[in-house]
């Protein structure tokens, strides 16, 4: 699949143009009255003035900041939890079943709980983001530690490296490639969960903006926000892929394929 997403795929760009043209012409020709589907030109007309307003950028920053904070919290807790579960078999025995019980719990179910506990606030949003993004990081860190060879354990034993130092300077870096995969999965999840939290609860950010435009029956603005989110999704994904490639050249590709 990879070679089709290279920058040289002109046909892919052509595909997008054809898609937009088809969309535009179906609306323009008007064989069927789409009351609430607007044409790409109308979306662009709504989008460009929107880009100049401070409100739009505030909403964008709010969503991204919330996703980033939630993701960082999940990353810190997840990596620590994953490494300690990977290194201590006693701890793993105690936590594994709870992990398996809690992991499939749909994150969106935390939105009403968050609303009851924190009201319409950033804390509620962070709870909704934190919980689902934690599991991919824990799982990937754990499997990264599991994949290490016995040599590494022997090395730690021979040099009498204290456990804490071993965790940070030996096992952590050795599992880094796998941890990065977990971080990448949960980063895109964090953006999704931020949008969900804003749609249901916290009345700020892009998620709320979409709902607001939908309820105000402004389809052009709504589509503009949705396309903004799509672009953000692509950018976040690409940014993390490039970052991972830059941090660990070679290794990253091997672990994801």
């Amino acid at each position: 699949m990879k070679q089709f997403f290279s920058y040289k795929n002109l046909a892919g760009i052509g595909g997008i143009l054809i898609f937009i043209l088809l969309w535009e012409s179906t609306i323009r020709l008007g064989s069927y009255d789409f009351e609430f589907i607007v044409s790409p030109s109308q979306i662009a007309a709504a989008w460009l003035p929107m880009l100049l307003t401070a409100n739009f950028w505030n909403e964008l920053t709010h969503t991204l900041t919330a996703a980033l904070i939630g993701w960082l919290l999940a990353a810190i807790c997840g990596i620590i939890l994953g490494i300690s579960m990977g290194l201590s078999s006693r701890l793993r025995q105690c936590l594994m079943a709870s992990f398996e019980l809690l992991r499939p719990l749909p994150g969106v179910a935390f939105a009403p709980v968050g609303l009851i506990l924190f009201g319409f606030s950033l804390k509620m949003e962070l709870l909704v983001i934190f919980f689902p993004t934690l599991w991919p990081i824990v799982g990937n860190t754990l499997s990264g530690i599991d994949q290490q060879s016995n040599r590494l354990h022997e090395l730690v034993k021979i040099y009498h490296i204290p456990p804490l130092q071993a965790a940070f300077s030996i096992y952590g870096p050795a599992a880094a490639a796998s941890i990065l995969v977990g971080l990448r999965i949960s980063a895109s999840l964090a953006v999704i969960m931020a949008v969900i939290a804003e749609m249901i609860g916290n009345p700020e950010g892009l998620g709320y903006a979409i709902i607001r435009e939908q309820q105000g029956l402004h389809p052009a603005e709504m589509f503009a926000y949705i396309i903004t989110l799509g672009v953000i999704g692509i950018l976040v994904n690409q940014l993390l892929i490039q970052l991972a490639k830059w941090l660990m050249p070679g290794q990253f590709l091997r672990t994801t394929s």
Partner: protein
Amino acid sequence: MQLFKKLLNPLISCAPVLIGFILWETFAASTSTNFPPPSLWLASILKLNKNHQFYSALLETLWTFGIGLFIASFLGFVIGLLIGTSHTFKIWIAYVLEFFRCLPPPVIIPIAVLILGYSPTMKITVIVIASIWPILLNVVSAINQLGNGLFEMGKTLHLNRVDILRKLLIPAILPGFLIGISVAAPLAVIITLLIEMLTAMPGLGGLMIAGQRNFNASQVFGILIVVGIVGLAVNQLSLFLEKILLAYKPPKTQR
């Protein structure tokens, strides 16, 4: 002794959750508005059940989820097969697919609400559109990873197109397809609950948001546990499905 150990191990591994519940039950005041003790959660579920609300909501959610995921799997498989087997089409459609894959799935809900209104059709359409991408993309990439050898063998054996599809292609891409479903299933649960929460339509999500609006915390926590059990069951079911369907040991994919 052996039996004792067998009983003890699961108990130890569930200990954090169990201890948490026991602590919560003992230390939470029964009048607490934010943290009602677990026994009250059960009571509120039983109360809902008495009003015949709980059972119908559970069925509604499971039914919508099941239908949505089934349609998404079928369409994802067929469209993935069509895209994967045609090289030119795949190149042309790559960026469009990439955009839809990166689009956060919940944003489809407002569009669908505007076009289809608050209806069961809208619910199922949203679930299908949101959960089809992992399935479709996994089928496409499974086909991409197949070596030429498989098709050459088919040609050598003079298989016709139907037989190539039935005997070679489908068994070879089944693992990818199942991975796609196991990614899509939790997503479909989330989307089902989210639609019910946003539109306050009948279902577990609707009950949760109703509980939150009435400041009935024990109902919210009770449904949270039910939702957790549903999530766990979906997870176990997809693992089970994988085990049964892949019992024939699919051919190794090569690059």
